């Protein structure tokens, strides 16, 4: 059995978000990056299948040089192989462009299951997984919080709203996008990190995947024109001063509300 996991490396959740000079994204120099939270759960779900039996886990990511770090971390956690799509021609791709690149890899790999995160912490699109499923021709579901593996299908609880779940059965091969909290994600052990150094990490270009001209900024159908802090609406009245002063203000307010 083979499982493919798609990972994205995103700015660290606590990174400073300064807008770049073009005004279309954040400044990415001098900030820390990490594997997208949702994707760590997807990887863990694959590694659990591997722990249970014969299974190869292949991690795939699109990104510049720094992305190697994310892939090495994934290999350190237990993935077997990595594919790094690294090419300036892919820069400025929209979600569909990214899905095309991943689909080309998926077609080469023919995995039994593809796990992805539900969305990415940076652009919050949640678009690539269903797009990838469509391009590869696989059935899919999103926001999985439980996956039960059968011989020829997966039974998935997908989270809907307000504490409700939908149970769906998908024939293999299929794609599942995973919600956070589905499992508890492991850390890479020191031994794992050492072993990762010897694991294969293939680098592919857009041309290698036969997609020259069909991905990247030139092929994008949607484009970010501008990025800006949300306009300040009716923001909260702010209490300022020393901790004592602030606390006194809070107590006064809670009393005013008749709750103290």
């Amino acid at each position, binding site marked *: 059995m083979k499982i493919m996991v798609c990972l994205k490396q995103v700015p660290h959740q606590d990174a400073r978000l300064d807008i770049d000079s073009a005004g279309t994204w954040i400044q990415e120099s001098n900030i820390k990056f990490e594997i997208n939270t949702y994707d760590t759960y997807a990887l863990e779900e694959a590694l659990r299948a591997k722990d249970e039996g014969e299974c190869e886990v292949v991690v795939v990511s699109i990104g510049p040089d720094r992305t190697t770090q994310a892939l090495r971390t994934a290999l350190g956690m237990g993935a077997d192989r990595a594919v790094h799509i690294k090419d300036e021609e892919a820069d400025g791709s929209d979600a569909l462009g990214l899905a095309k690149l991943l689909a080309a890899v998926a077609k080469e790999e023919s995995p039994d299951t593809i796990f992805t995160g539900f969305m990415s912490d940076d652009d919050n699109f949640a678009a690539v997984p269903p797009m990838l499923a469509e391009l590869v021709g696989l059935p899919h579901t999103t926001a999985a919080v439980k996956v039960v593996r059968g011989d020829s299908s997966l039974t998935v609880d997908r989270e809907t*709203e307000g504490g409700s779940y939908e*149970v769906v059965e998908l024939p293999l091969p299929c794609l599942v996008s995973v919600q956070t909290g589905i499992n508890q994600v492991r850390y890479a052990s020191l031994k794992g990190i050492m072993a990762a150094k010897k694991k294969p990490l293939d680098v592919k270009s857009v041309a290698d995947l036969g997609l020259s001209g069909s991905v990247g900024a030139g092929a994008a159908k949607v484009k970010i024109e501008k990025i800006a802090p949300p*306009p300040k609406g009716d923001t909260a009245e702010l209490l300022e001063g020393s901790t004592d002063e602030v606390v006194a203000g809070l107590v006064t307010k809670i009393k005013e509300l008749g709750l103290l």
Partner: protein
Amino acid sequence: MGSILVVAEIQNGAIREASYELASVAQSLAGTSGREVKSLVMGSGIGALAEEFSKKGGGSVLVADDAALENYNVDAANAAVRAAVEAASADLILLSNTPSGWDVAPRLAAGLDAGFVGDCFRIDFDGGQFNFRRRVFNGKLDAHVSAIEGTIVATVQPGATPPFEGTTDGSTSDLSVGFEGVRAKFVETKKSDSTGVDLSKADIIVSGGRGVGAPEKFAEVIQPLADALGGAMGASRPVVDAGWLPHHYQVGSSGQVVQPKLYIAAGISGAIQHLVGMKSSNYIIAINKDPDAPIFEVANLGVVADLFDVVPALTEAVNGAKG
């Protein structure tokens, strides 16, 4: 020129509020972009609902009425939307950013080789193109996105637009859909077993977020304030995901929706999925060290500070005030 297609959703036997919000977006874009509004209503035995939607902003409604659409199924829904896009010659297709929208909309865009913009809170037509606004970085920044050319599929954030009010001329017509390609199988829907705290009954909720940093800090810092105020403790999702607290503490779109007299959010940034769970609280106090945290947009009173300074001091002061 194409049309605008609204994909309506049925929930608990009625058209969802979010679908009337889509109708209102579509009707205003119809005016500015010179397009006609068409809609899809799908389900089983839903003729009357389709009729109703056509009179309330849905325009020319295509009705996909089939037993295969009785329970939500991603493939069946996708087949119906594909058929509707073709029948309507739509070049802007609007869905809600709801669990079915998550599944169907991007898949549809890839199938149509169309552009996709997810979770928009505003859509305009100017300069001859559709322009979209959406939040990125979990609500911390806004992105202005434009559609360069061709067909566009967009999802709209529920609650971001007032629903369509009033009546319109409308019509309904049957849409035939082939369901040969359906592979996903609906098994059942279930509710999470709601053992534990029912936060909806609490007058005061003190919630901690990822900023609380460690599981033991909930017992040491957050719970004591909740106790001092005679309230309950809540949490944001990452706290529950990390296993720091059980799911029944979670406030938000995938947790509990609460409306206490006082909601105190400490170390919570204010992502939309958290806000929908608590923004109707009577009074909101936010404590966060980041002055730009979106939580301050919904809070009545804010403190920009380290929660580990403010919360224990507040607990002490509240205990003192009670004498």
